[in-house]
């Protein structure tokens, strides 16, 4: 049936392209050496444009950037695996959606923009937060509902925020964050500071009406809004083709230009986001469809294997994994040895373990925090307890 038909698409191999990169620096390179050297690498999959000329497949990068990509993605990967264990140990409660497999989107996007640009996303938000400069400690504290978390423990897995670097966070209602992203973009356009907003949503969310309302407003007012569809091909247990008449999400803005991007390739993502930012500042909104994949189930209560085959998952891991792609690039350009990369992974693992240990020390929020932030402090609004007559609190 159509599932197998899809899988063959998902498994589009990239291996050949990685090694066709130009020009190879055939010299030993340790990560501390000159890292301003420019390396040009061809993306394995071309960009496909809708109502726009796609950017070049040749992406400029540097040894430093590649090493950073590797470390950052390894850290994200490790963090999500650790979150899985913490969840199983019941230290993380509630709903928890993991990002492993999609790391290239978070990392590539950050490489193209600044922290003055805004990002807003749905509930699969841990790694976006890390990409925005959040710390592992804040992540794990939030996941475990501790005071030290980025939302003081009151948000949980689905609600990470980081105001100082323009991360407007984790939203629980599918599709709701996209019009918000357009509002952010309007404010940015108004203040003329040459910044843009990235509104991320899934392939499932792409079918929500709000999205089209947002697109129209953004196009009508030429807002610097970039709608990023992270197409991981499933919305919970529903394959994209079951839910969308046209799963070509980059074209679904009709009058809004779009670009289809290999979302498993951090360099392609970087190139696309750079292109999109320039486009949005000049011409208004654009859709980026990131072709990506989530290894884990939808959330912790989904084993992730009932609606797709194990072969499909392992196939993507083998053929398209975003971390392995960068590892191969680093090795083929002799920027580091296999051992050095392994050591980085070990360091990352240690960082993660330390952050978890520290997060466990962070206290749970004080019970009085239950009533804070419902309204603005000091406005004398009252909240009532279970018994309206005896439990009443002027909101702190």
């Amino acid at each position, binding site marked *: 049936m159509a599932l197998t038909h899809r899988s063959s698409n998902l498994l589009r191999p990239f291996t050949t392209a990685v090694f066709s990169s130009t020009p190879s620096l055939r010299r030993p390179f340790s990560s501390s050496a000159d890292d301003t050297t420019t390396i040009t690498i061809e993306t394995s999959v071309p960009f496909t444009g809708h109502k726009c000329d796609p950017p070049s497949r040749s992406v400029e990068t540097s040894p430093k950037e590649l090493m950073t990509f590797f470390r950052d993605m390894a850290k994200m990967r490790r963090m999500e695996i650790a979150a899985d264990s913490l969840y199983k140990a019941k230290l993380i*409660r*509630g709903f928890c959606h993991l990002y492993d497999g999609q790391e290239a989107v978070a990392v590539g996007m950050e490489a193209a923009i600044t922290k003055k640009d805004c990002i807003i996303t749905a509930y699969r938000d841990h790694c976006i937060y890390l990409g925005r400069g959040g710390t592992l400690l804040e992540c794990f504290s939030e996941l475990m509902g501790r005071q030290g978390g980025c939302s003081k423990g009151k948000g949980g897995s689905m609600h990470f925020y980081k105001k100082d670097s323009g991360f407007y966070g984790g939203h629980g209602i599918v599709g709701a964050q996209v019009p918000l992203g357009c509002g952010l973009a309007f404010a940015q356009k108004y203040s003329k500071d040459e910044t843009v907003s990235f509104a991320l949503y899934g392939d499932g969310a792409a079918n929500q*009406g709000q999205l089209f309302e947002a697109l129209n407003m953004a196009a009508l007012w030429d807002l610097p809004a970039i709608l990023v569809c992270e197409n991981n091909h499933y919305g919970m247990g529903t394959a994209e083709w079951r839910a969308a008449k046209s799963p070509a999400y980059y074209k679904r803005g009709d009058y809004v230009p779009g670009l289809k991007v290999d979302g498993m390739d951090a360099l392609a993502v970087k190139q696309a986001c750079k292109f999109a930012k320039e486009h949005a500042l000049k011409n208004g909104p654009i859709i980026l469809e990131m072709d990506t994949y989530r290894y884990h189930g939808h959330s912790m209560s989904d084993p992730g294997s009932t609606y797709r085959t194990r072969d499909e998952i392992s196939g993507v891991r083998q053929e398209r994994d975003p971390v392995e792609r960068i590892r191969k690039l680093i090795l083929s350009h002799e920027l580091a040895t296999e051992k050095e990369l392994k050591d980085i992974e070990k360091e990352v693992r240690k960082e993660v373990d330390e952050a978890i240990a520290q997060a466990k020390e962070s206290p749970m929020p004080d019970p009085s925090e239950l009533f804070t932030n419902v309204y603005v402090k000091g406005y004398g609004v009252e909240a009532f307890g*279970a018994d*309206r007559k005896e439990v009443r609190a002027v909101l702190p």
Partner: protein
Amino acid sequence: MATSLRRFGRLALISRNWSGRGFSTSPSGEINSYSNIQQSEGKSINLFSAINQALHIALETDPRSYVFGEDVGFGGVFRCTTGLADRFGKHRVFNTPLCEQGIVGFAVGLAAMGNRAIAEIQFADYIYPAFDQIVNEAAKFRYRSGNQFNCGGLTIRAPYGAVGHGGHYHSQSPEAFFCHVPGIKVVIPRSPRQAKGLLLSCIRDPNPVVFFEPKWLYRLAVEEVPEDDYMLPLSESEIIQEGSDITLVGWGAQLSIMEQACIEAEKDGISCELIDLKTLIPWDKETVETSVRKTGRLLISHEAPVTGGFGAEISASIVERCFLRLEAPVARICGLDTPLSTCFRTLLYAHQEQDIGCNQVNNKLLAILLL
């Protein structure tokens, strides 16, 4: 817990054998031929299986009934629709895209053509994108078309309520919003047997109905449910337990806590009359009024935030009707006026993990009776 829930099983079962279709477009449309059947004890099943049975029967007995929603074709998040697509085909049981406003709007149209549209909203927390369709389209269709059109065949099912760690978007109890809308009915069952009988009534009722299912009880509540086709009347509350000192009113999952509180109160010599409202609008004022006239005291309990909750409406109505009979102010034991954060679950839903909820109700009972 399971034993106390099972006690809800002692019900006077009202049912009818469904024959033929009550067309939602028929002018009188009322289904009033409920008849008592022999109380046949069926198999012991949980609440989601009871819902599943009701849906099987609804699809079986009416070829113009349809079940749809997000992932419904695969059985749904809570397994309520398991096996339906296999049995009745993908044309009658199907997945929709992720678009609640579209789902409900579509359902209104389908129902307007004389069909029974049974739409699932995955969690009650996600019903808000469809709020406009429910309030502005479904509820007023009959009235504003001068009875030419209606969407009486529409039933919207949604799991509601807290399950301990659901957090902001898997925990809400939004029933009060819908109780402010003339033209729709709101129904909430407390147990498997109730769920099956009430859901079948809702599906066959000639008015649009929002049916909230207590997700906390999907697996937890187990009781014997007759396997045959039966319906329980809407807008008729039920006295689960008779008593003389105070009337307690609730619905859905909260009743299991209130029932426990009644048992505790009994030990203190307090005799409670416990009423399951079942249908929130239009609600059975008479039964509650009669009870309060007898006991002179009323306590209402719901999980939704206390301010603006449906308890306020009950309180106001009963005060209007029974002011001179009341021996104490009407009391409400309800949810806090706060969002529902996972990190505060032990404060917010203590009643589900320990006996705090029951104690809350109980302390209040004692306080009222000491007045």
